[in-house]
Structures are given as C-alpha cells and as structure tokens.
C-alpha cells in the first residue's frame, strides 16, 4: 500500500513476459514498467518519483484490504480486494501470445471479477515517456485511448466501462471488467479484441503452469525454489537469452541514500550461479541459451571479458543521473547505465570458466572455436591474476588485491585444467596448473589472518568479507580446515541479527550505509552444507526463506532492524543463491 506516495519495496510483485517486467503494488498500482524492453526507458516510474513518474492505478474507491498471491506455478498475479461492500479479484499478467497469431508487441492485461457484493473501482493511467521526461499525446479513436510519443504508443482498451484514461466503474457479483494496455515501438499498434485478450490471458497462465511443472525439484523448500525459478525466468530476456540482475533501477540500498544502481543488465559474474541453478532444476535449454549468449556477447573483447552487458549484447552502458526524478522516498540520485562496466573485475573469469565447465559437463561438447576461446581466456587469467581489481562488490575506491578475486582466478585455471583433461579445449595445463598452485599459495600466505582465524577481504585491509563464503561453492579448499573457521568468523563479525549478514564493514568508495546483503545469507547456507554442517545449514535456511515478501520475492537487501526489503527488486542473484543453497543441502543430505 502507498503511504506518502511510496509503498515499501517488499510491497511490490512483478509480472513479465520475457522482454520486460512491471512492478505492481498490493494496492493495484503499476509503478514501474519499461517499454518495449527491460532496459528501455520507463513509461511508469512512480516508484522513482511518485509525483511525476507515471503510474497505472486500479483499485476500489472505498477503503479496502488486499491479499494477493501468484496463481500457483505461474507468474500471473492475483490480488483480492475486500471492501465493506464486497470483494473483487484483480488478475494481472503480461501476456504471451500463441505462436503465429497477431498480437500486441507487449501487453499488460488486468482483469477484474467481482466475487460478492458491489464494489466501485477507480482507475487512472498516466504514462510518462522516457523516464518521465515527456507526457506525450493522448487521443481517443476506434473506441480506445492512445498515448503516443514518437516511436512509442500505448493503447488502452477497456471492456466493462467507457474507455477513458481515468474513471470509475461499478461491479456487482459475477460481473467482470477487462483492461488491456498494449504497447508498440516503431510499428503500427495491434489493437486487441476482448476474446483474444481473454485467450492470451488463459494461454499465459497455461504456459507458466507448464513451464514450472518442468522443474525437477522434489527437495525441501519446494514453494520457495519454484517461486525463485519463476522469478528468474522473468529476468531472462527471451530474444537473446541474457539474464538481467533485476528489472529495476535505483531502488535504494538505504532509504534516502546514494547507493542506487541500475541493474537492468546482465552480469557475467552471475553466470556460474545461473548455470548451477538452471541445470540443477533441469532447465537445460535456458542454461545453454544463457551460456551461448554470454560467449557470443563477449566475442569482441575476448580473452578480456566485460563486467556486464546489455541484453542485446552491447557493452556500452554509460552511467547517467536522472536529476529530474526525486528517487524512491527521496533516495537520489536515480541512475541509468552502470559505471561498473568500465571496471576490472577478475572474479568474473572464475565464474565464466566454471560456467563453461558446467555447460561442457552437462552437454558433453564445447565446439572447437569455443574451446580455443576458452583456452585463451585461461591464458589471460594466468597473466593477469596478480593485478589488483575492483572485486565482486564493484567497489568504487582504489582497486585492491581482493582475496575472493584471486580465489575465482584459481577456479578459472582449475576448470581450464579439467576441460583440457577431457580434451575439450587445447591443453596448456603445463601453464595453468602451476598458475593455479601459485594463486593458492598467494591466498594461503597473504589472504589468511591468523588472528581473525579467517580468510580476509584483502591484504591491504585485514577485515572480513562475506563474498569469501563462495570459496566452498567453487570447491576451493587448501585442505587446512580454514573454510569452516572462516564461515564462523564471518557469521560472528558480519552478522546483522538473525540469519542476516552484511557483506563487509570497510569502505568501498560510496558514501552511506546499506542493509544486510541477502545473497550472502544464502551463500552462508550453501557453504555450511558444503563443509558438512548440514543441520546448521537447514536451520538457517528455515529462518531465511520466510523473509521473502508475501509473494515469495526478495530484493537485494534486507533492513536488519525493520525487515524491510531494500535495493533493486526482485533480485536474481538472491533467488539463484536460494536455489543453489537448497540444492547443496539436498545433495549433502543424500551424501550422509
């Protein structure tokens, strides 16, 4: 529910169609939607500026309570409003269309059904194009409301009320109304009819049910795992196979703070977590599509890899501040683009090589060209690992010798050796294995602090870093029982209360505080399971899963004091970490 213009971040749910996604608050307001693609400019951005961002609200006129859920096994949202006069159900979806049928380029469908009594509904649609820089033109023709701005056009169709940009309607028991907001870009609009809109909504529900039913998961936390994979599917950009970190920009990591980033891009770092999760649940096609996407996207820069890419494969992502938007609860600046694209981050090489290994292991083949490219990437890591970098957290202070980055370089060379051993890439193990050994020796000598009893963030600042929980995940183990000790130290010193963890406490070149980093808590579960502390892992998982919002989604961070979700929403990395943690516990229990 909106209060002072903004609902809590955790009050949102998301619907999408594999190209873009909309945030919908529990009071029925669509506060975020970019068109035509997830990284295009917004048409609704009230979440970043309640006054001028633009929104599509649809709710009872009288005071109401709202309860919502996703229709089980789908990304179709169902919100039930209860007023003193009656009950009405709102079904929201971005529709998918049966192949070969004429359909809108993008379409948000909102269906109202009165379950009992009489309910008056009010709606208002105020699109604001290009991140609310322009209002556009509004006109009515052919019984529809058109909102146009240059190459973009929205068509609002309403069945059950007069087609106007705002208005009221009254529904009695068993009566229905249907709203379709169809979008086009660079093309004539396709104006939907009622029957085919209903058909697309039914098809969409049916598609999601079928897709979720393919998940090969009979383990614990089934609902959370399924919701996570469904949320992840919404982050997959279907035309290319890229997976964005989140469908939003600039939702703050602390209210009123400056840690507001644009996550509508695909980070190569997430590759290993993504392939692990998709393969574990049996989504081989999606896993291999993502693999080929990032190998293709990075083709021009290989063996050097970019930190992040646009969903169309471009690596040009200049960071800009949108001064005309006031930000979520005055959290400025609002940014588009991401300066991290220019950083050196060595950890991503471990993620990419591990992904190549996972792909080859499940697929059985790599292809000669990809094999050669992989070997060149491994050669690059052999040369570059001694460099300082900006690390997994993309710090904006001076580059450092992050221990986690070194460990990921070790993983890169280790996986290259495995691939060479299988004959899948040119064999240069005589270089790579000594390189991996040298990195391990460096980590054990410079990356360990006897006093803390833990691996440390960097030799330059001897403090803890929750990213080191990924060491067991990449199977780094120097055989000295240092992993378990590091886990305990991180839990003790970076603990934010309950199952929550801060990612680090040191400086990172950005002013202000932030919440607990939810992914790190799931990495903690994963790490515990992998070092054999399965009961602890399962107990922690039981504590973490209920921290999701009412529809099972996580933002990037959680406020340790209030439990409020912070940061971009929903965040893919958290849901990937949740799935992988559940898989690790299941695997560990099977080994017991």
């Amino acid at each position, binding site marked *: 529910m909106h209060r002072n213009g903004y609902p809590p971040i955790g009050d949102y749910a998301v619907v999408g169609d594999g190209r873009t996604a909309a945030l919908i608050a529990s009071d029925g307001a669509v506060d975020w939607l970019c068109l035509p693609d997830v990284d295009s400019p917004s048409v609704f951005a009230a979440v970043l500026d309640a006054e001028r961002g633009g929104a599509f609200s649809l709710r009872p006129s009288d005071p109401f309570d709202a309860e919502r859920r996703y229709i089980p096994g789908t990304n179709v949202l169902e919100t039930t409003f209860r007023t003193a006069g009656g009950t009405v159900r709102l079904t929201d979806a971005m529709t998918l269309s049966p*192949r*070969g*049928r*004429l*359909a*809108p380029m993008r379409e948000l469908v909102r269906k109202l059904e009165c379950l009992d009594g009489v309910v008056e509904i009010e709606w208002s649609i105020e699109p604001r194009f290009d991140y609310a820089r322009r209002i556009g033109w509004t006109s009515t*023709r*052919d*019984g*529809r409301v*058109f909102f*146009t701005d*240059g*190459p973009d*056009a929205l*068509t609002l*169709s309403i069945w059950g009320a007069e087609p106007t940009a705002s208005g009221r309607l009254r529904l009695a028991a068993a009566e229905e109304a249907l709203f379709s907001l169809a979008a*086009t*870009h*660079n*093309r*004539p*609009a*396709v*104006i*939907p*009819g*009622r*029957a*085919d809109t209903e058909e697309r909504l039914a098809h969409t529900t049916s598609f999601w049910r079928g897709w979720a039913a393919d998940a090969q998961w009979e383990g614990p936390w089934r609902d959370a795992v399924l919701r996570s994979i469904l949320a992840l599917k919404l982050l997959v950009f279907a035309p290319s196979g890229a997976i964005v970190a989140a469908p939003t920009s600039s939702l703050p990591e602390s209210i009123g703070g400056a840690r507001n980033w644009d996550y509508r891009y695909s980070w190569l770092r997430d590759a290993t977590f993504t392939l692990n999760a998709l393969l574990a649940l049996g989504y081989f096609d999606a896993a291999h599509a993502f693999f080929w996407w990032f190998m293709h996207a990075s083709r021009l820069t290989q063996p050097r890899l970019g930190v992040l890419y646009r969903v169309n494969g471009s690596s040009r992502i200049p960071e800009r501040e949108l001064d005309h938007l006031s930000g979520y609860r005055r959290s400025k600046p609002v940014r588009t683009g991401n300066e991290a694209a220019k950083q050196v981050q060595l950890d991503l090489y471990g993620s990419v090589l591990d992904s190549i290994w996972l792909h080859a292991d499940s697929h059985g083949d790599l292809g000669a060209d990809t094999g050669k490219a992989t070997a060149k990437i491994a050669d690059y890591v052999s040369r570059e690992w001694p460099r300082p970098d900006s690390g997994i957290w993309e710090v904006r202070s001076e580059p450092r010798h992050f221990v986690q980055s070194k460990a990921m370089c070790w993983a890169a060379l280790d996986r290259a050796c495995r691939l060479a051993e299988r004959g899948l890439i040119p064999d240069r193990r005589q270089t790579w294995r000594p390189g991996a050994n040298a990195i391990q020796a460096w980590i054990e000598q410079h990356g360990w602090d006897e006093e803390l009893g833990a691996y440390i963030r960097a030799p330059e600042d001897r403090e803890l870093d929750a990213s080191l929980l990924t060491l067991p995940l990449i199977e780094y183990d120097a055989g000295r029982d240092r992993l378990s000790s590091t886990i305990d130290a991180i839990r003790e010193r970076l603990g934010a209360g309950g199952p929550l963890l801060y990612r680090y406490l040191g400086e990172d070149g950005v002013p202000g505080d932030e919440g607990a980093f939810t992914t790190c808590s799931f990495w903690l579960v994963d790490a515990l399971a992998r070092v054999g502390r399965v009961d602890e892992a399962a107990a922690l998982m039981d504590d973490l899963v209920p921290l999701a919002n009412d529809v099972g989604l996580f933002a990037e961070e959680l406020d340790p004091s209030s439990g409020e979700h912070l940061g971009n929403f929903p965040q893919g990395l958290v849901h990937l970490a949740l799935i992988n943690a559940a898989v690790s516990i299941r695997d560990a229990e099977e080994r017991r």
Partner: protein
Amino acid sequence: MSLAGALAGGFVGTLVLTTGLRLAQVAGLTRMDIPLLLGTAFTEDIRRAEAIGYAVHFFNGLLFSFGYWLVFEAVGQGGWLFGTFLGLVHAVFAGGALVNVLLPAVHPRMGTPSSDAQEAPVLEAPGFMLFNYGRYTAIVTVVAHLAYGAIVGAFAAGL
C-alpha cells in the same frame, strides 16, 4: 523512354524508399512499417508477415515504375525532375487514398471506424496522411517517394 530503365529504376528506387523508411522508423520518426502492413494482409504471423511484406513491396515498386513509364511515354517527357513530381503525386495518393482508404478496405486485419473489436486483434489504421503513425510520418513518406520518383525518372531517361 526505356521500359527496362524504368523497371531498373523501380528496383533501385524501392530499395532506397524501403531503406529510407526503415531508417526513419529506427530513428523514431515514424511507426509506419510498410512490409508489416502489407504482409499481415496475407498472414497474422508477424515474423512471416515481414518477409512476405518485403516481397510484396518490391513487386509493388516495380508495378508503380511501370505506371511511371506509361505516364512518361504518354506525355513524352521523363527525367529525374518529372519523376520527382510523379513521386509527389504518388506520395499523396499512397498516404491519402491507398494506405488510408483502399488498404483498410481490403486488409483483413486492419481496423476501420466500423471494426468490431470483439472479433479479432486488428492493426492500427494509418489515418489521413498516416498521421496515426507519428507526426513526421507524412514528411518521411513524401521525401521517400520523391526519391523513388527521381530515381525512376532518371533511370527511364537513361540517367
């Protein structure tokens, strides 16, 4: 006037016209998509419609160049300047009657003021001088057709 020249001009002119309109589309000046409009008359599969539409558009380009040649022969005059004038007439006809009146009348999937939207999804009708597809659509269309006419006229007259 050379018929072969006019047809060759029709081919080159259609290439230029189609590319110009596409560039204008990408530049955000118009939402008009002629291959889509033409192709969806034959299929509702948008991917196939684009391919069919390009073929139909090229055929139409050649057909119109034949018409240009007939006019050149009838008045005993050709060349790029007269071709440009015919291009202007062509553009006004295309925007005013062909796409706005004739196409919706025969197109099975294009909306008209009497469309019943209960039945099937329909393509947005272009409106007079294609104004529904964006403010600059008329200008873009006229410029593209002027280029087409100039090329056909020049080719027919042997450059």
